[in-house]
């Protein structure tokens, strides 16, 4: 008996996943870089005063190349590029995380209803999701921005609308195979309410894939936000956003290429760190796939 006990002593699941993740060097690098961005976003005001460095224009100091005084140089309005990038981290991460969180919430509710109740509710919901997903996501976001007007809140609404159908599908696909099974019947027989069944028994299985999916989704959202802001449909100046900064840099590409390089690198590093982390999480959650 003791032989069996010692073999199957349960290691904490989360601890096990963390252990596996730690072994993945690329994922750890991603985690470190992501933490740097996160800290910049949180402590942005400490690192660079918002009004003085990010917004205030200073014609005398415009278009200065990188120096010890201005780490990444100054832009066409004399604003410190480093300061704007640091505050830009706050904008990008906020939008990315908010969009994903709200999408999971909405998608979770709708997807659970579709999967759990099935029948005509399921059909109607999924047809609506299908139709929404038939519009290429950037176009959907563009149409919404076009109607609502540019700005951070509207951008948030626009990309959330484009994102939540995907989560609806994921959650529904996790619930569907489980719904018919007997342990659900058993739980019902004990008098457990529907909502509790979903929350406590079914959804915990979905957490893994959702976390992996979401990490990479935030990366894509950061890029999408930048793209939309670049074409003028997203965050409006003077708010610092990496894509918007790139839009402003176009005129000065020839003389001041650093204006293009640094905000772009910020986007790449942020997205890369999230992708590396997401990939590592996927391997850590299901190590079978590796060997």
């Amino acid at each position: 008996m003791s032989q069996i006990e010692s073999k199957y002593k349960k290691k904490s699941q989360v601890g096990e996943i963390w252990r596996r993740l730690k072994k993945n060097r690329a994922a750890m690098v991603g985690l470190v870089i992501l933490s740097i961005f996160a800290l910049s976003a949180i402590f942005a005001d400490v690192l660079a005063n918002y009004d003085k460095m990010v917004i205030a224009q200073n014609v005398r100091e415009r278009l200065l190349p990188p120096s010890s005084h201005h780490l990444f140089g100054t832009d066409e309005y004399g604003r410190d590029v480093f300061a704007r990038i640091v505050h830009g981290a706050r904008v990008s991460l906020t939008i990315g995380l908010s969009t994903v969180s709200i999408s999971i919430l909405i998608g979770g509710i709708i997807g659970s209803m579709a999967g759990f109740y099935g029948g005509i509710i399921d059909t109607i919901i999924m047809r609506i999701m299908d139709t929404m997903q038939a519009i290429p996501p950037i176009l959907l976001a563009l149409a919404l921005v076009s109607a609502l007007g540019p700005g951070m809140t509207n951008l948030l609404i626009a990309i959330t609308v484009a994102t939540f159908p995907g989560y609806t599908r994921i959650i529904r696909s996790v619930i569907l195979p489980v719904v018919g099974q007997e342990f659900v019947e058993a739980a019902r027989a004990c008098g457990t309410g529907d909502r509790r069944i979903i929350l406590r028994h079914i959804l915990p299985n979905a957490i893994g894939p959702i976390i992996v999916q979401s990490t990479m989704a935030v990366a894509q959202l950061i890029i999408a936000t930048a793209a939309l802001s670049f074409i003028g449909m997203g965050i409006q100046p003077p708010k610092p956003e990496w894509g918007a900064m790139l839009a402003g840099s176009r005129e000065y590409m020839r003389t001041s290429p650093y204006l293009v390089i640094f905000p772009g690198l910020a986007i790449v590093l942020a997205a890369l760190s999230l992708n590396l982390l997401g990939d590592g999480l996927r391997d850590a959650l299901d190590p079978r796939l590796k060997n």
Partner: protein
Amino acid sequence: MSEQLLKIEDLWVQYKTNECINNAVNGISLVLNKGENIGLVGETGAGKTTTALSILSLLPKGIGIITKGKIEFEGQDLLKLKEEDKRSIRGSKISMIFQDPMTSLNPVQTVGEQIAEVLSLHNQSNDTKEQIQKKVDALLELVGIPSKRKTDYPHQFSGGMKQRVVIAIAIACDPKLLIADEPTTALDVTIQAQVLEMMNKLKKKLNTSMILITHDLGIVAEMCDKVAIVYSGEIIEFGTLEDIYEAENHHPYTIGLFGSIPNLSKEAHRLNSIGGLMPDPTNLPSGCKFHPRCPKCMDICKKEEPNVIDNNGHKIKCHLF
């Protein structure tokens, strides 16, 4: 005097991953004569499938490593052949049937195509396409499937019929040796009986020798001439059917195996089982590998590996004898 067909000599196989080394096969030796059926019996993880895969060099690349041993077939050491020669033996002189018919067939090819493939791969007599198709038809009829179904896809067949297709592919080139790895485990009991009956018929008709891997002693009794009991990568008992089923002396594990079969005529409160689990292949016990579970364990069992006692062909690896 029967002619020797296959001789496995002191085979050792390991599975190496980044995390650990799994000692799957630890010194297996076996002789199969022409026309014989040998059953390899043992629990899951004993090393039976690994041994079979080693014969055809089908171990997972980079992970399954044959560290020692020799496998003689028709005068050649199979392990030392060039890849092309190994390939020419696979499917034609030695065939293998795997456990799960549901996943053994390619879902996007018709069954006819899959049978034809093995025929064209080993097309010694340079048959034309039509001739190959005729052979496909004949093979399907032989396993009890109407030949007009050769244009159907695997998902259109039931489990039992899929396994028959797998068997048709395996016998297509008249192999001298057929290795069947738990061919009926995944099937219903009634279908099991049908498939086994068909295999018996084919064996008699084509005079194929067979290695049958199973954990079911009943199937062994029906299909095999000789039996090898495998435990933790070793053969701990070997003999003819009479030796294993009726002789006096047995390895304690064998006694445990037979004892686990519920007796229809006696009443029992609980099922008998052999206490404990098969040892962790990454961390094998010292001495006799069965000693932690053996009801007759003695001091010497913990320290020294037992020798093989050969009693007129009936071999037992145990300190008791």
